[in-house]
C-alpha cells in the first residue's frame, strides 16, 4: 500500500487546482484547472431549476436548448427520477415526451450494463459491415489538427468543456470509426478521459451504437447534415477537402461497401 494521502473536504475553488493537483500528482492528464461547470448537488439542482426545457424540440441543432445535466446525472448529483419529475412539471406536450424519452436512454444503458457487465467493453455483436478497425487513436485527431474545421472543433470542445452536444458526439464517433477506421474503444477512451459525464454504460454503448456492434446498422452522416444542424458554423467558410460531401447512397457504398 502506498503512502496514505488525505485531502480536506472543504477546499475552496481558488485553492482546489493547486492542492488537489499536488495530492493527485502523476494521476491525471492535462493542467490542473477547474471544470467548465461546477460539480456538486447544489450546482446540479441550480442547473435543473434554471432549465425550462423550452425549445427542446430543436435538440438536434447545436444551438438547441438541451439541458446539459448529464454530468450531474453521471455522478448521482441529480437523480433520473427528479429530473423526470421536473420535466413533467415544467414542460409540455411533444417537447416533454421527447425529453423524457431521451432521459430513458440513460436508464436503458444502465440496465444493459447491469445485464452485460464487462462485456459492454467489447463488441456486443459483430459489426454490420466488413470492418477492419485499428486500435490506436491517430495523433492528428487527438491534437485537433485533422485539417477539417468541424472535426477539430469537436475535439476542442471535448477537451476544453468536458462536454459535447449529442450530435457532435455522433458525428465525431462516425468520423473516427467509419471514415478513419479506428476501433470504437479508442474513441471511448478519449471520451472517458475528458467528458465530465464520461461513464461506462452511456459511453461504451453509444460508441457501439454508432459502430453497429450494438445496433442494426452503422450510424453515419453527410456534409448536408452537419451543415444543417450546426447552422452552417463550419461549412460556410470551409476550404478543406470534405470527406462528408456526398449523398447517403454514395457514402454507404464508399464506407460500407454496400449498394444504396
Amino acid at each position: 500500500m502506498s503512502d496514505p494521502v488525505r485531502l480536506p473536504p472543504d477546499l475552496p475553488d481558488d485553492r482546489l487546482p493547486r492542492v488537489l493537483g499536488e495530492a493527485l500528482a502523476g494521476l491525471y492528464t492535462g493542467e490542473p484547472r477547474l471544470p467548465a461547470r461546477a460539480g456538486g448537488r447544489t450546482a446540479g439542482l441550480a442547473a435543473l431549476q434554471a432549465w425550462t426545457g423550452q425549445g427542446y424540440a430543436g435538440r438536434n441543432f447545436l444551438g438547441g436548448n438541451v439541458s446539459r445535466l448529464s454530468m450531474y446525472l453521471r455522478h448521482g448529483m441529480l437523480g433520473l427520477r427528479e429530473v423526470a419529475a421536473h420535466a413533467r412539471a415544467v414542460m409540455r406536450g411533444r417537447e416533454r415526451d421527447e425529453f423524457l424519452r431521451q432521459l430513458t436512454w440513460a436508464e436503458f444503458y444502465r440496465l444493459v450494463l447491469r445485464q452485460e457487465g464487462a462485456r459492454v467493453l467489447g463488441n456486443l455483436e459483430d459489426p454490420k459491415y466488413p470492418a477492419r478497425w485499428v486500435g490506436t487513436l491517430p495523433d492528428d485527431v487527438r491534437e485537433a489538427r485533422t485539417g477539417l474545421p468541424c472535426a477539430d472543433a469537436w475535439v476542442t470542445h471535448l477537451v476544453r468543456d468536458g462536454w459535447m452536444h449529442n450530435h457532435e458526439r455522433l458525428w465525431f464517433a462516425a468520423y473516427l470509426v467509419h471514415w478513419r477506421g479506428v476501433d470504437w474503444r479508442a474513441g471511448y477512451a478519449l471520451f472517458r478521459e475528458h467528458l465530465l459525464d464520461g461513464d461506462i454504460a452511456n459511453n461504451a454503448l453509444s460508441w457501439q451504437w454508432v459502430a453497429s456492434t450494438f445496433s442494426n446498422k452503422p450510424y453515419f452522416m453527410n456534409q448536408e447534415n452537419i451543415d444543417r444542424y450546426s447552422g452552417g458554423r463550419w461549412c460556410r467558410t470551409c476550404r478543406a477537402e470534405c470527406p462528408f460531401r456526398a449523398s447517403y447512397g454514395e457514402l454507404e457504398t464508399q464506407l460500407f461497401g454496400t449498394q444504396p
Partner: protein
Amino acid sequence: MTAPQVRRVVWIHGDSLSVTDPALSACPDAPALFVFDRPFLQAVPVAFPRLAFMYQGVRDLAAHRAGPTEIRVGSVPDELAAFAGAHHAAELHVTRNFTPDFARIVDGLRAARPDLRIIIHEPERLTSFDGPLRRFFGFWKKVEREVLHGEPAPDFPRRGHRQERR
C-alpha cells in the same frame, strides 16, 4: 447525540456523489469515505477537470450532512478496510452501481475484512422494468407509460398520452 448501536461507515463512490445517496441517507451520522482510486488513475488517463468535478461533489455532500466525510487517495479496498478499522465499524454501507469495478472492490474488501458486514443499498431507478434488454425501441414500448406519467402503471387505463396532448 447518542451513539448508534452498530458502528457504521459509508463508502461513497463516483456514482453517488450526493447527500441524497441511499447509503448516506440511511446513515446520516456515520463517517463516510471517498477514495480517489490510485491504481485505476495510474492505468487510465483522466483529465484533471473530471477529478476536480468529483471533488466538488464530495465537498458539497460533506457540507450538507451531519457525519464526518473524508477524502483519501489510494487503493479503494485497502483504504476502506483501514477506514472501517479506524472507526471500529461493524458495518459498511454503500449504494450499488453496475460497473465491473464495484463487484471487484466489494470482493477485495470482503477478503480483507471478513468480519465487516457490507450492506448494499439499491440505486434509484427511473423505471420498474426488470426483463431482458436488447434494443432501446422495445424497452421504450414497455416503459413509455411509466416514464411519461411518472408512476408504474400496469393497469393504467387505455387512454394514451398521445390522445391527451393532441
